[in-house]
């Protein structure tokens, strides 16, 4: 039997098991539900405001943008968290000690994080369909667009999560990366159209995946007329593909190198040192 295939299959099983575990403990359930409730409340409050220059509900415009953010956040932050935490607690070292264990581990993490992202997306999307008016969800095209944006978004952000997760050895230092991410969300036109921001800020936002994920999701779920109030007056699908594609390509080249370097350096002594540091913080 092919050993790589075995490890991939084990990784898929691993992802399924860990995804199922997220439904059986309060911490994970809270992590699903809390942001969802916050987003829904925000959208309800924004429901009666309108997008500048239109009479379209700002809440309905925010919803797809939030989905884009959920994808970016899910891919980047969840994987990053998992890698740093599980490096500290020894999960990775265990994976390293078994044949093809690292491959299985990584496949499992990708399945888990993708699954978690999908779930987070669905639990925001479904109630929104009942609360918000004006969404264009009647035709298959909307859902196909949503699907490719989701998929490309994950491919673009998961490798970044893997890279950052490998670089940070202490889970408590992740604020360093979380703050810029938060700033980026604020400037990426998620909660308010980017068109009202100064040009240089628009420029910065358009370098990163979050803006394009929001735009892609809006293109899927908003009526075509709403493209008029986007930058360039269009959904810019080609540009979305281009920018997310470049991030994905760069990530897929860089991530394996960084991951391999991180995995090579994992040892019991390193883990023990981290453990000691963590215990010192506790006491």
């Amino acid at each position, binding site marked *: 039997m092919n050993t790589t295939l*075995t490890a991939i*299959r*084990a990784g898929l099983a691993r992802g399924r098991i*860990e995804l199922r575990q997220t439904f059986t403990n309060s911490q994970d359930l809270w992590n699903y539900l809390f942001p969802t409730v916050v987003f829904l409340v925000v959208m309800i409050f924004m429901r009666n405001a309108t997008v500048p220059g239109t009479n379209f509900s700002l809440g309905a415009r925010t919803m797809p943008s939030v989905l884009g953010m959920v994808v970016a956040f899910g891919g980047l932050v969840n994987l990053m968290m998992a890698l740093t935490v599980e490096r500290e*607690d020894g999960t990775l070292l265990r994976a390293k*000690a078994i044949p093809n264990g690292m491959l*299985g581990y990584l496949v499992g993490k990708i399945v888990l994080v993708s699954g978690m992202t999908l779930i987070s997306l669905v639990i925001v999307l479904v109630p929104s369909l009942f609360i918000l008016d004006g969404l264009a969800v009647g035709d298959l095209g909307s859902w196909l667009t949503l699907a490719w944006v989701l998929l490309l978004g994950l491919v673009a952000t998961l490798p970044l999560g893997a890279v950052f997760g490998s670089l940070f050895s202490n889970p408590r230092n992740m604020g360093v990366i979380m703050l810029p991410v938060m700033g980026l969300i604020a400037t990426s036109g998620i909660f308010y159209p980017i068109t009202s921001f100064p040009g240089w800020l628009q420029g910065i936002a358009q370098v990163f995946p979050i803006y394009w994920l929001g735009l892609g999701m809006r293109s899927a779920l908003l009526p075509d007329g709403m493209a008029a109030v986007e930058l360039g007056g269009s959904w810019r699908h080609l540009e979305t593909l281009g920018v997310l594609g470049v991030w994905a390509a760069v990530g897929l080249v860089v991530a394996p190198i960084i991951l391999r370097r991180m995995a090579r350096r994992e040892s019991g002594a390193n883990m023990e040192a981290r453990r000691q540091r963590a215990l010192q913080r506790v006491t």
Partner: protein
Amino acid sequence: MIVASELGQSTSGAEPAREAAMIDVRGLRMRYGSVDVLKGVEFTVRRGEVLTLLGPNGAGKTTIIEILEGFRMRSAGEVRVLGVDPAKGDEQWRARLGVVLQSWRDHGKWRVGELLHHLGSYYVPYSTPERRRPHDVGELIEAVGLGEHADQKIASLSGGQRRRLDVAVGLVGRPELLFLDEPTAGFDPHARRDFHDLVHRLSDLEDTTILLTTHDLDEAEKLADRILILADGRIIADGSADVLARRVSRDAEVRWSRDGEHFVHATPDATGFVRELFAQYGEEIADLEVRRTSLEDTYMSLVRQFESGQAEAAVREFEEASR
């Protein structure tokens, strides 16, 4: 010095057997920055042997074991594990090893059986007719004494139960060579005895070669066919507990009582002394006890000195005592 004489004998006789050695280490050196942690370590482990690496904390035991496991690059020296340089070991090689790690809180949400089953599944393609891989999970759980906890979440296990799980994880691929780093840390005496039984069973029934580290001499004596004492980056003694004990202490302590009075006498020739004792007093002698000044006494003084920073003096003294 023990090392020299012992190695001199064994290598000359066992040169062809080096091929079949499970572990072969020559001139192993490790340097962190400007500190030499290992200064030329040499040893061989034969198939089926249980070998203990004994030494004070900080002697470099974990460094050696991690080099052998392929988790750490060495500075210099030649190392072969199952005939392969661990720095270049592939997954095929890895599948033949069992590594028992110090765990902490990983896989807390998993259930015991679930995790073993999952980790075992990686070994399926490495199964051979002689060695079916992976281990049957049910049997394995029983063997490490976690039978009642198979469906329990790992986060809810006690420290000792967790350690048993670590051992089970190390065994799930039915390894030919098993590494155990401080396996009984945090065990209560009962769990410790169970664990010792398990190690004996593994080496007898499964033909598993075992290398374990400990700083506990008592454990080393109970478990190992052979003990290597590591201090100051070198192996300062190599032999069975019995051989080491004899080397370390020529003097034995003889205790007896006569007419309700108790006596103690130290002598290098306990047998001769006791013979004379009986010749002289015959049936008046009671409560006879002959005890060698244990390896433990000597080892403990080594550890004490080592910990107070007098590593070299400690090693010299130990070698003096065991000459």
